[in-house]
């Protein structure tokens, strides 16, 4: 290849659009960037809610039966005299899982970044169906509000775990919760609808709206990950919706799908739930893996190691993700022969994750590592996801799962993959794309402090849960001190709780940095990280319609340190390999 002279194309000359009303522009907007930012605020709010619920749980676990600070604010039905009731604890666990999985992490990964990044990274002016996109956001809002409101109704919020196993979830007589359980279902049906509409949009957009030259093999790994994630959502979500509707009917109109009295099958609910649920946990990690690949590559100033293998691994994880759901049911009374086959497929699914892990290391190898905040969080992601993934191997082994199923070992796994994994990648992504979204940089020093403290307190809070699990401590226990084999673990609980409070405090640091930078941050250049993908070749923030003149793509997505480019260490995807003729205006 001849020497490449950089000639950026596609930075639009901005023409002022006629004024839109505030409502059309920021509330009922159909611009994918606005919708992405709306999702960002919504999901951070639910992250905060989920975090607050976790703090209440941790209080009870460390000091069972001791009145909570501000406990007087709670009504008699939750915490008389500030002392938490068992039923309230169960609602907290359930809603903590629900908010975190469905409303915080899923919306952060997919709602925010699929909306914001897909059109920008493939060079499209907007989504394929902008108004459908708006509808998708405005279905997610009431879904979240209904879930939140369920704390206020009689009987309290749902109390059957985020997995809502029947018959406990199907019969108010058993759980003491009726309205709350129904609101939980309605909320998730709405969220499922929102997610299906969104997925339809993302898939169509990626298939049909890529800019000229944006071949499948030139898509940034983020787009690949979001595309495959959308397929998972599209095919898994409706199965949950179907199951939820049957569960709702069991509660309300007297059907008996999951209630054994007249031949219903409790295990059917578990099969339906996990047929959705396992792909769901990959929905919660694949986009994170995409962000991390991209940020690691930019931070290391190197192309992603083994791009094709990375794409193949994403596809393989998605495909295998549909055939492993039974590993959540090893001890459920499922046919043990099925247990064997699910165990083997679960083992196999770790292989593509191994490919990804080693390719990330390959990307860092012989790089020129810039430790800015997004890079730190991305490296943190790899270090912590691996721990969570490896603990998954213990559970994947069905005979050992006999012992650790439904113990804190699982809780440790959940948080290593979802917090250490997904949430770390989300922090990386927020720091990385914040300048594009808001036109200002986030404070890097406070970002690094946030990273360091989060990394430390995260491990202090969740690593000890492995040992609690190995000691046999069960999950979803209001008070763990009553069992002889775990009675001496109260000290560990204390350590965890204090670290969890500190962890929440690091969230506050982040929040201050986030809002502070939005108004006071340093003005961001179009491409602060010297990155290659298309979104960086527009102003920060990009204007309505994204491009004045459509970008044309000439290169792969992560071309850093190309030997033929000598004046800088990156090559934007839309830089022409020569300057024979300037792109026509």
């Amino acid at each position, binding site marked *: 290849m001849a020497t490449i002279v950089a000639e950026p194309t596609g930075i639009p000359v901005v023409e002022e659009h006629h004024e839109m009303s505030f409502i059309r522009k920021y509330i009922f907007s159909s611009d994918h960037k606005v919708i992405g930012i709306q999702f960002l605020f919504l999901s951070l709010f639910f992250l905060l809610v989920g975090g607050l619920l976790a703090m209440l749980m941790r209080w009870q676990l460390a000091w069972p039966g001791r009145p909570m600070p501000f406990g007087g604010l709670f009504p008699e039905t939750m915490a008389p005299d500030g002392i938490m009731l068992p039923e309230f604890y169960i609602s907290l666990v359930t809603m903590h899982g629900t908010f975190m999985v469905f409303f915080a992490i899923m919306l952060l990964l997919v709602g925010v970044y699929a909306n914001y990044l897909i059109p920008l990274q493939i060079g499209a002016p907007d989504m394929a169906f902008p108004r459908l996109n708006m509808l998708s956001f405005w279905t997610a809002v009431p879904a979240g509000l209904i879930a939140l409101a369920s704390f206020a109704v009689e009987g309290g919020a749902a109390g059957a775990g985020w997995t809502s196993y029947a018959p406990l979830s199907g019969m108010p007589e058993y759980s003491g919760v009726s309205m709350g359980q129904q609101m939980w279902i309605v909320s998730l049906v709405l969220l499922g609808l929102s997610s*299906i509409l969104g997925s339809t949009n993302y898939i169509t957009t990626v298939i049909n709206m890529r800019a000229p030259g944006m071949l499948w093999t030139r898509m940034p790994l983020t787009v690949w990950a979001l595309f495959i994630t959308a397929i998972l959502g599209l*095919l898994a979500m*409706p199965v949950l919706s179907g199951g939820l509707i049957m569960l709702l009917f069991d509660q309300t109109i007297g059907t008996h799908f999951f209630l054994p009295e007249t031949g219903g099958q409790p295990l059917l609910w578990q099969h339906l739930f996990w047929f959705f649920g396992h792909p769901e946990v990959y929905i919660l990690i694949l986009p994170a893996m995409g962000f991390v690949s991209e940020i690691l590559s930019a931070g290391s100033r190197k192309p992603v190691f083994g791009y094709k293998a990375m794409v193949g691994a994403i596809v393989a994880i998605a495909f295998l993700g549909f055939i492993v759901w039974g590993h959540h049911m090893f001890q459920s009374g499922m046919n043990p022969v099925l247990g064997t086959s699910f165990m083997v497929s679960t083992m196999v699914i770790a292989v593509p994750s191994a490919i990804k892990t080693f390719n990330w290391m390959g990307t860092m190898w012989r790089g020129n590592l810039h430790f800015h905040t997004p890079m730190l969080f991305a490296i943190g992601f790899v270090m912590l996801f691996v721990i969570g993934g490896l603990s998954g191997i213990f559970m994947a082994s069905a005979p050992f799962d006999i012992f650790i199923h439904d113990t804190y070992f699982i809780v440790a796994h959940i948080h290593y993959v979802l917090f250490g994994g997904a949430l770390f990648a989300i922090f990386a992504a927020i720091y990385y794309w914040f300048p594009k979204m808001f036109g200002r940089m986030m404070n890097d020093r406070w970002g690094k402090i946030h990273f360091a403290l989060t990394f430390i307190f995260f491990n202090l809070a969740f690593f000890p849960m492995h040992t609690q699990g190995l000691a046999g401590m069960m999950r979803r226990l209001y008070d763990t001190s009553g069992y002889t084999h775990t009675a001496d673990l109260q000290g560990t609980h204390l350590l965890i709780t204090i670290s969890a409070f500190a962890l929440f405090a690091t969230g506050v640091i982040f929040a201050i940095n986030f809002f502070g930078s939005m108004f006071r941050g340093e003005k961001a250049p179009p491409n602060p990280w010297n990155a290659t993908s298309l979104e960086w070749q527009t102003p920060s923030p990009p204007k309505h319609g994204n491009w004045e003149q459509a970008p044309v793509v000439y290169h792969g997505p992560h071309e850093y340190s190309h030997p033929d480019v000598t004046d800088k260490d990156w090559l934007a995807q839309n830089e022409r390999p020569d300057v024979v003729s300037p792109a026509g205006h």
Partner: protein
Amino acid sequence: MEAHAMPYYGGRAPEKGLAVYTQKVGMWVFLCSEVMFFTGLIGSYIILRFGASETWPQPGEILNIPVTAINTFILICSSVTMVKAFAASEMGDKRGTRLYTLATAVIGAAFLGVQIYEYSELLGHGFGPWSGLYGSTFYTMTGFHGFHVFSGVVCMTWATVKAFRGGYDNGNYQGLEVLGLYWHFVDLVWIILFTIVYLI
């Protein structure tokens, strides 16, 4: 209808994708998710029925096969008028477009009418969703299918109005084609339901 087509790209076509227009891709993608939704419901029916096969009622014992057979025929007819409406629009036959869209909406509504009649008869005989697994699965599956037909009828009514205002004239057939995909899919689901719920 041709959203964000060529002009935007200043003459250079975007990457080819599925080689059909965007709305059609979107509808097919959406239908994939509908397939999984009905898989959840129909699959549960199959699974529950296998577990209780001795107690399952014989075909025709509770449900009225002749009435439903006629209703099936009605739905098939609506699919024909739907596809005719699309064909008319594509060939520029304005009168045909209008007539066939109207017919589709009306026939679809007729299907719903028969289904409501069927439900009221069954409920009158004390067979409701609370009547064991058979009742639970029957009402849930046919109810959600009916809900899909209902949504279709609403859209078709809107499409009829649009057709009479000339919205599908001059080669502007995509809207009807995409709506048709949905309509035929709902018909297709009914074909499966009719067989496994009523006949087997």
